[in-house]
């Protein structure tokens, strides 16, 4: 009964004209940046953060969420047609999607990617709606020690799954914590690391930091070399997969949805990991594994379903625990905090309209995406022809204006430029920016939880081990850190990462 009451609350919000409009805007922009090379959902969400200051928080989150799951749809188009993933989560789709296109089956490949994404997206939203309330009930029992340990576990899992060196990822998490503590200390009111700059008393803004690390640094990297844009010249026809295609793909879609959803919940998991795991799973259980990489439709259906379902699953830790599982969710957390809303177990009680409204908007968003990606596929194909030489000055210009209008201050633009240059160098030296941003967003929460825990225990770290949930999180974190040092497991981890890079 409660399910339906929540359902109605959610839809009464999601169906409001302004929310429908911004949901459409979000999924449209998401598909657009999924298709276009050189900019991903993180950079786009960061650029659009200032735009959301003037609109209601529910509407803002509906739009930003739409960009994220919309990008998962759009990313498949370039993977299939030009063998270039528009987005990291669509890397695996290139393996069989492009092969299908070369064999003249671009239509069914795009069709199954869109239908698979739609089915998985819908399964993901239902899962989110069913799983969120019981998790909220558990999260309500969490105190500061549990939160501290959970965040530490989150950092460890994120860095364990880092594509490059784990030590470097952990180091970046440390840098993120330092950046997150800049500004006034909320407990003592003391300014920290502000160097006498009054604008830094409120801390380093999330928008200029993320715009610099993901937007500007990406531009600086891309302008180094000419981006080759090749487009398949064959006509796209027959977007609807045949009965045989469906027979082969439906199981893959359902399995991809399952694995994607649960990997999406994991900290550091998200859409990228979901797509890789589901592809590997399908190849392993297939009766024709030799067809994979040569145009097997399951190889398109499974990862596309997984990355969409993972995008929905990733909302669970954010909405129920207030802890972002990946960098996209960290930006959403930042957006909520800008509107003075603290995500976590109290969110559903204090802001039911936002909680259920955002979830229900995803049903609408998925329907909009199906319409945008099937009948309008021609439009996106045309957009693939826009040269990067035109795109990058425009992206750069929007970043500059976006950073300035946050506080009408050039300090934010300067921070963005600094972060952009540092981000560029970080990529050159193989340091990942994602753990940095995640740690930056979590730093104030971690600091409060850590200090409160120590005050509660009278200065004893034992408090983290006597509470079962907290102890469990720390044991798992320690186990992961320890296992990464064991040569056999380290080699296995490095092999998986190397394979993923090769496929990229």
């Amino acid at each position, binding site marked *: 009964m409660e399910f339906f009451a929540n359902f109605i609350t959610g839809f009464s919000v999601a169906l409001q004209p302004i929310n429908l409009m911004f949901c459409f805007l979000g999924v449209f922009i998401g598909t657009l940046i999924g298709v276009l090379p050189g900019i991903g959902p993180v950079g786009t969400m960061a650029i659009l953060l200032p735009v959301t200051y003037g609109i209601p928080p529910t509407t803002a989150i509906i739009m930003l969420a739409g960009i994220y799951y919309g990008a998962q749809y759009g990313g498949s188009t370039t993977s299939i047609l030009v063998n270039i993933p528009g987005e990291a989560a669509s890397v695996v789709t290139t393996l069989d999607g492009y092969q299908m296109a070369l064999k003249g089956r671009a239509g069914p490949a795009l069709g199954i990617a869109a239908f698979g994404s739609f089915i998985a997206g819908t399964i993901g939203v239902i899962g989110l709606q069913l799983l969120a309330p019981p998790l909220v009930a558990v999260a309500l029992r969490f105190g500061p020690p549990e939160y501290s340990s959970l965040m530490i576990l989150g950092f460890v899992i994120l860095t364990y799954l880092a594509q490059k060196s784990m030590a470097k990822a952990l180091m970046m998490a440390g840098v993120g914590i330092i950046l997150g503590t800049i500004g006034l200390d909320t407990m003592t009111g003391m300014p920290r690391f502000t160097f006498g700059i009054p604008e830094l008393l409120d801390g380093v803004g999330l928008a200029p930091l993320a715009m610099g690390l993901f937007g500007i640094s990406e531009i600086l990297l891309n302008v180094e070399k000419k981006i080759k844009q090749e487009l398949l010249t064959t006509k796209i026809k027959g977007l609807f997969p045949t009965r045989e295609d469906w027979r082969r793909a439906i199981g893959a879609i359902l399995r991809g949805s399952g694995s994607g959803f649960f990997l999406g919940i994991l900290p550091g998991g998200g859409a990228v990991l979901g797509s890789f795991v589901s592809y590997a799973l399908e190849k392993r259980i297939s009766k024709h594994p030799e067809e994979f990489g040569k145009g097997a439709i399951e190889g398109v259906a499974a990862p596309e379903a997984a990355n969409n379902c993972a995008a929905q699953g990733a909302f669970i830790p954010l909405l129920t625990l207030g802890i972002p599982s990946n960098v996209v969710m960290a930006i959403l957390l930042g957006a909520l905090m800008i509107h003075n809303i603290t995500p976590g177990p109290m969110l559903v009680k204090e802001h039911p309209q936002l909680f259920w409204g955002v979830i229900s908007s995803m049903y609408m968003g998925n329907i909009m995406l199906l319409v945008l990606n099937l009948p309008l596929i021609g439009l996106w194909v045309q957009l693939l022809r826009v040269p990067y030489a035109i795109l990058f*000055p425009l992206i750069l210009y929007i970043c500059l204006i976006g950073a300035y209008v946050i506080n009408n201050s050039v300090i934010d633009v300067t921070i963005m430029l600094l972060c952009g240059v540092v981000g560029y160098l970080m990529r050159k030296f193989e340091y990942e920016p994602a753990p940095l941003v995640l740690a930056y967003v979590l730093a104030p929460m971690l600091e409060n939880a850590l200090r409160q825990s120590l005050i509660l225990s009278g200065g004893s770290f034992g408090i983290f081990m006597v509470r079962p949930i907290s102890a469990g999180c720390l044991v798992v974190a320690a186990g992961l850190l320890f296992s990464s040092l064991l040569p056999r497991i380290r080699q296995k981890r490095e092999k998986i990462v190397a394979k993923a890079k090769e496929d990229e």
Partner: protein
Amino acid sequence: MQAERVGSLFWFAVGLISMYGSTRLGLGTLREPGSGFLPFLAGCFIALMAILVLLQSFTPKKEARAKLAALWEGVNWHRPLIISLLILGFILALESLGFIPTSFFLLLILFRWVEKFPWRKVLIVLLLTLGSTYLLFDIFLKASLPRGILGF
């Protein structure tokens, strides 16, 4: 592996500076942690990890060495440098010169001299971009963009 060592030494220095800054803020006690407590822990952690990366760089694997070298191969330094300097110029000129003139010069240099588009194309893209951003930010979002000495 030279790059790896330079990188780790840089972050090691960042860790040490953070630790020093944190001690000046006050670490407090375990019963009542001070403002510098968490940044100090983070600084220690950065320095420790930097040492680890530095040590790893002395026993590099063949593939890792090749991967890192590939990132530096054929680097066209001048383009990222020009873009960074243009952004710096934009920052310095924005408030004194105003939003429209600064944007005009930035886009003009990017399209005409960095990307070498023909004048006609440059003017069309310039007009469209300036017009639409002015409408979006100044008229629609009511963001107070700097007017500068020219008053617009």
